[in-house]
């Protein structure tokens, strides 16, 4: 398999993994069964799983109390801004800024 062949096959495969279930999903979306409720809860569950993955990646980069404090401060800033202004972009930027600034303040 050539280099571009691998890339094209990976792109096509990834696309089909996303596309084919989306088509069947329109039928499922009209139902009221347990599968429909399962799919309704999947988004929130995915977000929670993504938080755990991304935070644990950061934590293992520097598993130290300072890292924990930075994560807590960054998370608190995100939640505070999100509560004050329902603006995901602003909350994200402020959270990242606080995380970066906390690293500077807590540096040895």
């Amino acid at each position, binding site marked *: *398999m050539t280099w571009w*062949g*691998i*890339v094209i*096959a*990976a*792109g096509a*495969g*990834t*696309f089909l*993994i*996303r*596309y*084919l*279930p*989306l*088509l*069947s*999903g*329109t039928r*499922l*979306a009209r139902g009221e069964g*347990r599968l429909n*409720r*399962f*799919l*309704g*809860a*999947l*988004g*929130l*569950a*995915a*977000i929670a*799983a*993504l*938080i*755990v*993955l*991304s935070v*644990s*990646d*950061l934590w293992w980069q520097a598993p130290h109390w300072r890292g924990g404090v930075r*994560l807590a401060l*960054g998370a608190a800033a*995100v*939640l505070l801004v*999100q509560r004050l202004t329902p603006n*995901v*972009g602003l*909350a*994200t*930027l402020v*959270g*990242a*800024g606080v*995380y*970066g*600034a906390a*690293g500077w303040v807590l540096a040895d």
Partner: protein
Amino acid sequence: MSLERAILSPWRAAGRGLHESLSLVVGYAPIAFSFGVIAVQSGLTPWQAVGISLLVFAGASQFVMVAMMAAGSGGLTVLSAVLMMNLRHLFYGPALATRLVALPRRLAPWLAFGLTDEVFATAMAKGASRPLEPAWCLGLASGAYLAWVGGTALGASVGAGWASDGGYVAQALDFVLPALFLALLAQAWRRARWPVVAVAAGATLLAMVWWPGHVAMLVGMLAGALVGSRRLRAECSQEATT
């Protein structure tokens, strides 16, 4: 007038989606930049790096793909690894469809192509409060795609000599994706849904002891959604009796 409104409306929805993709753009750009840098450092040409982002558009699996190619793995091995990593996306389409006002057939391929973890999470967080217009989702995915491809191109072309110096700005950028997911969780949060979040987070954490991240995420997602399907049924029954 109504015809004009009907024609303009999807464009307005797409514009709103594009506008709301800004938080994704901020999160994607540095990661895509890193991908471009790493791809070139692994021996790919800038065009090859951009080609992967253009055709695959699946963050983590692209990093794995480049690492395996650089290590000389066979084509089928690389392909299997990429597809296995992206299997969790099987569930995204049906879940998104439950939140869409409609799914025109001609838009489905475009929506599916842009259905990454972050686009899905953002759409589902927004969809918790109102039904989603397909054009809005397309605008959202377009912003994310442009940031991903643009960031890769920038990293691959000007970032070859660039290396992370561990500075505080770079560290702040490391927190962009966790911050984005946390803000999305806060946006989609409903008190009654806490078991979904707790079980998904706990199961992911536990699964990470034995399996790599993409498998742990799949386990956590499914466990949380299973609990959610039971809880939601209980909530519906409760509403019916009151």
